[in-house]
């Protein structure tokens, strides 16, 4: 199971690490209790500064996704998948709220926004169904 980071991406590297670990947990590839590599190992493998990986792990720990048990290592928390789902939902909710607020600010009506959303969902469904 690998992760890939792109140093030239506009998304900060530590956020790429956080996102990919969360994705692996959400996909069930990283099960509760699964050990994660040490900060040193991951930083070495990715040829990054240790602080970058430590920052990513700290964020995952603060979000309740992983648990650092001293010298024993770092593990995926038991309720990590729920936490990841909750984080994703709240992030999506925030994004939608921002978008709706922006569209209302542009002077669009509720009905127009609803139509736009329905159209966007229809397009997304079509894309999903295309192999």
């Amino acid at each position, binding site marked *: *199971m*690998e*992760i*890939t*980071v*792109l*140093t*030239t991406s506009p998304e900060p590297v530590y956020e790429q690490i956080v996102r990919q*670990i969360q994705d*692996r947990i959400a996909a069930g590839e*990283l099960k509760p209790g699964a*050990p*994660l*590599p*040490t900060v*040193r*190992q*991951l930083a*070495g*493998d*990715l*040829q*990054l500064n240790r602080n970058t990986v430590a920052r990513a792990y700290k964020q995952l720990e603060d979000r309740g996704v992983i648990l650092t048990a001293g010298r024993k*290592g770092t593990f995926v928390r038991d309720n990590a998948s729920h936490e990841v789902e909750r984080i994703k939902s709240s992030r999506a909710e925030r994004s939608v709220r921002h978008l709706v607020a922006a569209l209302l600010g542009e002077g669009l009506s509720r009905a127009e926004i609803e139509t736009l959303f329905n159209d966007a969902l229809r397009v997304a469904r079509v894309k999903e169904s295309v192999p």
Partner: protein
Amino acid sequence: MSIWVDFLVYALQVLLFWVFLPRQGHQFTLPMIADRDPEWLAAHRDVAARLDGSRWFLNTCRVWGAVSIAALLAVALDLTTGPLGGAAAKWEVLKDLNSVLLMIGSLVWCVFAVIWFRWLRTYVPLANTRRATLTPRVVSDYLSRPWRVAIETLTVLHLCAWVVIGVLGWAGGADYWSAFAFVTAMSVLFKVAAALAPRRRPGYPDRLFGDNYRRAEQRVWCLFRLTPVIAGCMMIGEHAFGFDPDRVGHLLLVSVVNLAMLTLLGLRPVAPSAPSFSVRSQLSA
């Protein structure tokens, strides 16, 4: 013991260090570049071809190997007493001569390595896309339990032997305890190095040899962890029982180093289709 046993052990070391290892190492010049940035390699085919075709490092090593064997042979055949000779026994002259030749050669090798890695860091940038495994690496993945138990037991027994002999009064004094401190420090140092090895970032040899490389690396560290035990037993023999096991002990240490080198040389690529292997074909395309 015949002087030719000493000569054969040292000659094997010379061949391993100055003929076989450089030859094995040379074929990884291009994969090392590809390991940093494959795109750079593809964009600088002329530089890569020049590096691949260069033989001066290999030839320098071979010349040094030939000089070393000639010097050892000259001492073994009594053609010379050696630059460090004098009144010393022939096995001791061979031992010292081999150590000096190995040290000089290793220093030159280190200079080459520093120049190569500086060049690599200066001219070949790290790739923008980097990959890493999310599976932690631990010693137990690469070294079976019996091996680990055997090494730990030997190390502990060896260190306990020092304490017991000192407490029983069979040996003692500042010399004895400073020697004990030295072997303890060496044991700890090699243990730490062996424990850190699994966390090393994977490089080009890992891609070429797969997990076998890390397994071999662990075995090499295992062998190196035996060296304080061997040296310690020699020192105990000398301090407590008045033995002079210098010759046998030194030959044993050199044999351990030779075994370690043979372990690395015994590695075979596991993925002939890996990117590293296709480097030459890409260049010639």
